[in-house]
């Protein structure tokens, strides 16, 4: 293997690039922004691993079972086994490159309890695990940049993949500095572009993760999977600019959820699920908060000030700054918000898509989390998926022939010029806002045939408008050309939700509240001539 392009420079993209470079592959690490701006820096809670010095009773098989159970047995058993078995090695790798883990008395990564896990197995770095991992990976990538193996290309926005006869040969990028689209040819493309936040507007995540790459690739023939499974984080706070996450660590450290009834506190999670009720999986906690129909609060004020200071400093600062609440004295008003996408690009166990030499890693790929993700498994999957993809790619042959895609780049630039020439100031962001309003209504915590069909009608309308829209030439061309891809992804997600006529994990249908054996398989969706075709992967073709 001679060279590769990795699109996206968060944790999964960087791990892929680093591991490829270490195997001697030349990597173009392309992203609009530096890694410090990626959503990975926001991951707060931690990273799971059953280490050789595990809590009594814990085992790798218990981590596997918790992950499969949390995902309602929709994730591939083999893939999850690989994920959990590699966890200790991953922690050792991260420790080795200098990640500043919170440590125990022996100086090794300390562990905390996180929702959905039977044992205390989540390693962490204060309340900023993602940021600390990013900082160490940036240094590792820097080492390989200095060695000439990784080349960072900033200001590059993905446009489309170069695909011919089911094989990927590179990608088109819009270059912010030059204002045009150009082709980059390569042996392998790895997509590491994160979740699909833009579909839902204000979420807990980054504004940069818009799902466009998945939507565009879908239109180019790449299959997507499990799009109906959208995780709502139960504890977020409302601010003027976005929803902000109160880390699961707050409940891990003993935080209690309650609402007020006739002047009395009702600890509804503990009443219904016992002493560990506050640490139930995110879908259950989110639905319980939603169903309570009252203002819900999270209380950590009974913790010692020194514990809040040492274990939850970021939560303390966040609440003080954005909502003026001192968590050592007052409870935090919380509500669920879109947080993570279990669905995404369908990949095989080696993280290759249905297009040869096109891979996907991290949150944009759907693999380990089934119908719901456990806290601490996303950072683990981000690192693991990058390692798996890199291992597979490094062993591949260099491409002998590369078809000429110059006409694709010319056509893309012609379309771009046409957009730039329009005089309209109609903001594409308005359509994105309307679409996200639709998605929140149609694909919220509780869905129904009716809400989903309303959503499909709306999104189909926006798609028809998008095709005829005069574009806004005072924003980056990327925002204009990405609209159709984002709307198409929204439409695909609605189709998946419509097809799954049952409730499972994060997908709850009020008209089909039971979990049914008939649907015990991943949803796979493809796009053919404008048609959205959904099937259930009962043969486990993506488990191989």
């Amino acid at each position, binding site marked *: 293997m001679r060279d590769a392009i990795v699109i996206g420079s968060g944790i999964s993209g960087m791990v892929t690039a680093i591991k490829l470079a270490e195997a001697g592959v030349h990597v173009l690490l392309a992203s609009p922004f530096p890694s410090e*701006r990626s959503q990975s820096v*926001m991951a707060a809670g931690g990273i799971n691993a059953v280490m050789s010095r595990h809590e009594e009773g814990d085992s790798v098989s218990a981590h596997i079972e918790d992950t499969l159970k949390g995902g309602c047995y929709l994730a591939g058993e083999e893939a999850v086994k690989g994920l959990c078995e590699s966890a200790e090695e991953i922690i050792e790798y991260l420790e080795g*490159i200098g990640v500043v883990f919170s440590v125990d008395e022996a100086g090794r990564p300390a562990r905390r309890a996180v929702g959905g896990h039977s044992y205390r197995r989540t390693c962490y770095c204060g309340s900023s695990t993602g940021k*600390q991992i990013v900082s160490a990976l940036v240094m590792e990538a820097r080492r390989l940049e200095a060695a000439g193996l990784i080349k960072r290309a900033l200001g590059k926005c993905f446009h489309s993949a170069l695909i011919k006869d089911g094989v990927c040969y590179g990608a088109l990028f819009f270059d912010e500095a030059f204002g045009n689209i150009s082709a980059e040819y390569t042996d392998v493309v790895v997509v590491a572009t994160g979740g699909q936040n833009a579909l839902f507007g204000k979420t807990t995540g980054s504004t*940069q993760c818009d799902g466009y790459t998945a939507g565009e690739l879908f239109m180019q023939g790449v299959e997507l999977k499990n799009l109906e499974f959208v995780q709502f984080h139960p504890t977020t706070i409302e601010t*003027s600019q976005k929803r902000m996450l109160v880390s699961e660590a707050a409940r891990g450290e003993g935080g209690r959820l309650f609402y007020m009834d006739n002047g009395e506190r009702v600890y509804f999670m503990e009443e219904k699920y016992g002493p560990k009720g506050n640490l139930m999986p995110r879908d259950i906690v989110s639905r319980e908060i939603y169903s309570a129909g009252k203002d819900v609060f999270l209380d950590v004020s009974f913790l010692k000030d020194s514990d809040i200071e040492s274990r939850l400093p970021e939560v303390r600062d966040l609440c003080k700054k954005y909502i003026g609440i001192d968590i050592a004295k007052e409870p935090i008003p919380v509500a669920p918000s879109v947080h993570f996408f279990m669905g995404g690009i369908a990949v095989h166990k080696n993280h290759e898509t249905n297009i040869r030499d096109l891979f996907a890693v991290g949150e944009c790929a759907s693999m380990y989390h089934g119908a719901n993700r456990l806290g601490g498994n996303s950072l683990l999957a981000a690192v693991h998926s990058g390692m798996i993809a890199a291992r597979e790619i490094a062993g591949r042959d260099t491409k002998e022939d590369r078809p000429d895609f110059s006409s694709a780049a010319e056509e893309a630039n012609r379309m771009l010029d046409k957009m730039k020439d329009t005089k309209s*100031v109609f903001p594409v*962001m308005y359509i994105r806002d309307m679409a996200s309003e639709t998605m929140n209504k149609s694909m919220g915590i509780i869905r129904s045939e009716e809400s989903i069909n309303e959503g499909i009608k709306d999104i189909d309308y926006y798609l028809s408008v998008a095709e005829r829209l005069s574009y806004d030439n005072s*924003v980056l061309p990327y925002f204009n050309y990405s609209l159709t891809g984002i709307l198409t992804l929204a439409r695909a997600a609605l189709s998946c939700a419509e097809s799954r006529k049952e409730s499972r994990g994060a997908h709850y249908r009020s008209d089909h509240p039971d979990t049914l054996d008939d649907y015990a398989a991943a949803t796979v969706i493809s796009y053919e001539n404008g048609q959205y075709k959904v099937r259930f992967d009962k043969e486990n073709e993506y488990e191989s």
Partner: protein
Amino acid sequence: MKVRILRQQTPFSEPYWEVFDADVSGDTSVAGLLNYLNYHDDIVDENGRQTTRIGWECSCLQGMCGSCAMVINDVPRLACDTFVRDLGNEISIRPLQKFPVIHDLLTDRSSIYENLKKQNVYIEKYQPDTIKNRKKAEKEHQHQYDAAKCLKCGLCLEVCPNYVNGQSFFGAVFANDCYLVSSRNSEKKAEIKKLYGEHFGSTCSKSLSCMDVCPMNIPTIASMAKLNK
């Protein structure tokens, strides 16, 4: 309130001030204010003249990524982390001036990364100092955690009286990464201290303004104390 924004259409065009009227609550952040100006209605200046949308960048919108660094009322700050309630009735916003402007409030901060890359500032392999004193070890660990939170936002460079354009003096962002490398890999200590001296220690006039504006409250003075030893 009046909002004055220093605009610049392209990297090569002349900058100019444009004034907008805005009516937002005090709890709105400057990021929220920019979104309001761009999208609450057609964008017009204070005289009602149609203008172009204001270019700026954001990602996390909660002070964790450093995208939205700019100069607000003459102080380098993060837009998502600065609230209208603290800014009075006239707000001025301009791009960071120590970096080339790409468009409006967007700047090219790649020199930060280039300097760290050119000087080989990376840990490579975690080899901690053996500190027997537990309290001292904990303090050091906290310092490393704080240093690794650096956003590479460039605010410390914008405010620094010694930093010009990153040709030879690399500023606090460099010093803190140097500290992190030297404290996490004892084998690199000597090499890193030398680089630190050349590109920071020998020039820094210790105004410590970098610490005043750091959104992560990184104790740069403690990094300096360690590297000056």
